[in-house]
């Protein structure tokens, strides 16, 4: 019993220390020097203009890339899967990859919306009055943009995975049917 109380107490102390260190490191990331604050205040308008241009060009990129990824799924993957299913062929390999691709596409959409909202929130902050919040918001937007890029990389990986699954299906099909029609 005494041992258990000691263990719980130790866990609590570790949790509190971890929380404290986490808060310290988070605040250290967003701490600005006076010189940096002054630079942000001076360049406030030009920084906001740059962010605004990035927001517009990224919106165009999102629409165009989103269309391509969506079409890959609806015009190729779904149709090939349906064709195999209509002939009662084992399409589990390609269906599994399509499921992962769908989920990656959903993540891409959701994470882009998060990123766009963060950029909008950043532009709304008065950087002459509150350079610290403005800087922190830019850092958050930067992280969210990196997440969107990871989603894109994942989609590209799944496009390759689907190709491999379709090639595997072809090999099995060739082995089973001897190349004949189904």
């Amino acid at each position: 019993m005494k041992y258990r109380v000691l263990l719980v107490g130790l866990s609590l102390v570790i949790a509190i220390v971890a929380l404290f260190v986490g808060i310290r490191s988070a605040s250290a990331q967003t701490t600005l020097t006076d010189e940096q604050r002054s630079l942000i205040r001076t360049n406030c308008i030009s920084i906001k203009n740059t962010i605004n241009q990035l927001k517009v060009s990224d919106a165009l990129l999102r629409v165009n890339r989103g269309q391509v990824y969506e079409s890959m799924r609806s015009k190729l993957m779904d149709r090939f899967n349906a064709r195999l299913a209509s002939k009662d062929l084992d399409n589990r390999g390609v269906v599994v990859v399509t499921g992962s691709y769908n989920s990656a596409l959903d993540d891409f959409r959701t994470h882009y919306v998060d990123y766009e909202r963060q950029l909008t929130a950043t532009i709304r902050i008065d950087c002459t009055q509150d350079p610290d919040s403005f800087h922190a918001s830019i850092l958050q937007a930067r992280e969210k943009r990196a997440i969107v890029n990871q989603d894109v990389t994942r989609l590209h990986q799944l496009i390759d995975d689907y190709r491999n699954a379709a090639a595997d299906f072809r090999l099995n099909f060739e082995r089973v049917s001897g190349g004949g029609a189904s």
Partner: protein
Amino acid sequence: MDDNTSQAHRGELTSFWQKHRFFLLVSAAIVAALSLVTISLVIYNLSGSAQLDLSRPGYQAVSDQVTRNDSIDEYSASGDVTLTTIDEFLRLYDEQATKAKAVDAFNGDPLNPELLEFSSAASE
């Protein structure tokens, strides 16, 4: 006496509604329209459609650069499955996959504070 007073009051109220019924109808229509517009805008913003709408103010400059035709050839969902049709799919898929992977979207680090906020270019 009290009955007479309340009847007179009710009569005044009825005549008030009758006199202003057109005004009330228009007001109710405006309130209903405003409520529906508010609900639509909330849905528009929450659903993420706003982020894809390039007809918003500030986005007109790029709205004509949207790819209207994605030029991806459709593969038929019906038909025989043979080695030839599978090869045809793989050829089509490879073609489109190359196009899809050609752009590493959202790469780079344009929001790096060193470049965006603290560089000499930012102070120009």
